[in-house]
């Protein structure tokens, strides 16, 4: 950061004045600004939003690199949530926060499993969820997860009936402290074991999902999400 300031100071005053009018503030200042914006917001802020709010010419992504480093090991940390950033208290200090704890709704087993299936298989249709669980998914379960803003509708499948798909949200990632769906626990192993494939049943295995014939696309969706 200091080097930045030095560069500024080396310039002649006329030049400097012009710069402050038309150029971006020094990186140290940009870092402060990003810090202020992230601190002020309860929800993650995207790099794009940051750049929109910072003075013209700022580079929020670069400022974030410095800021993240600055907060390493502190009581709060700068975390990535999807394509957005947030400040969250360090996980090891949860015990201090009983006062702040909000009663997390006790989710039913069906809801938890449905959520996990959506997270690991997204984008996934209702029929596919039902095939994996072997039971119909009640409307209430999906509604609850949508209401909690943990899942949302994804793109429709381009298959007969154009079924809707479900994907997890930024709120989901934020709630479980995940940078992206790629960071779901054990997802690499599951993928390697072929357990995230929606294998076509060889015959007619009873289950709600058998009629669904868009399995190819599911595989597309997954590989799309996880290829790197």
């Amino acid at each position: 950061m200091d080097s930045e300031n030095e560069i500024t100071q080396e310039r002649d005053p006329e030049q400097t004045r012009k710069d402050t009018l038309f150029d971006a503030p020094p990186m140290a200042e940009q870092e402060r600004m990003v810090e202020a914006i992230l601190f002020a917001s309860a929800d993650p802020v995207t790099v794009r939003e940051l750049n929109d709010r910072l003075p013209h010419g700022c580079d929020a992504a670069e400022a974030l690199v410095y800021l993240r480093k600055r907060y390493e090991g502190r009581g709060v940390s700068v975390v990535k949530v999807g394509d957005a950033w947030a400040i969250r208290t360090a996980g090891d200090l949860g015990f201090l926060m009983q006062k702040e704890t909000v009663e997390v709704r006790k989710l039913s087993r069906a809801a938890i499993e449905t959520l996990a299936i959506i997270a690991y298989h997204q984008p996934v249709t209702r029929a596919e969820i039902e095939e994996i669980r072997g039971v119909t998914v009640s409307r209430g379960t999906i509604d609850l997860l949508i209401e909690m803003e943990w899942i949302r509708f994804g793109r429709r499948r381009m298959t007969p009936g154009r079924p809707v798909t479900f994907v997890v949200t930024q709120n989901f990632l934020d709630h479980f402290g995940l940078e992206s769906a790629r960071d779901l626990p054990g997802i690499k192993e599951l993928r390697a074991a072929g357990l995230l494939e929606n294998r076509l049943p060889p015959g007619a295995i009873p289950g709600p999902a058998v009629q669904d014939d868009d399995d190819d696309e599911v595989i597309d969706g997954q590989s799309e999400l996880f290829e790197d």
Partner: protein
Amino acid sequence: MSDTPSLLDGVENQSVSERLAAEALIVDVDGFEGPLDLLLTLSRTQKVDLMKISILHLAQQYLAFVEKAKQLRIELAADYLVMAAWLAFLKSRLLLPPDPTEEGPSGEELAAHLAFQLERLQAMRDAAAQLMARDQMGRDFFRRGIPQEMEQIRKVSYTANLLELMQAYSRLRTRDEFRPFVMDRENVFTMEQALDRMRGLIGFAGDWTDLSIYLPDGWSANPMRRRAATAATFAASLELVKAGKVEIRQSETFAPIQLRRKDQ
């Protein structure tokens, strides 16, 4: 299938403890989330890795479960019975030598897929448990307690152009000309009024009298009012002539118009 060399012995191989376990399951039938869940629970009694599970054995366990439920007159949901029928079919496929004329997947393929489904469901359950065991926001880590909302500052900027300015001024200055039309009664003397007035006065007009005499008081000074009153009175006179009550004459163009009573 490698762990069940004697496929035919399957049912008999079921231990007493397994049968007891199956009975315990029946009592809890409402606790299962469908046939696949039940199969997964049953598979645990085999105490082997899901990868090595005997599907045939599992099918037999399931069928025994359904049989027991029937004996106990427990109503099973339709999908449990559909699964039982399918497993019975699978069992026959696994036990009988393959019929080369028959189409469709082999018993082994079907069994492998069921094993995959069970393994996948178990994997998802484990994943769900791992997910829920993560640090969660609002429980283990926290968001900002005093979020500072973006303050929306609304600035209103007004515009006006020269034309609007001009129009506004013209509007003010020509207000009288352009006000909504209303009859200005003040300066209008109607024929009805003139008729009323003349009917009262004409009785006294035995001799030729100028029309201007009949103009009402106060209507002669202002030229506009005089014009209105004159026109109305003249029109009224013509009405009276028509009615045969009055005679009218004018010696030449622009000469005074004179009236006198017509005696019947």
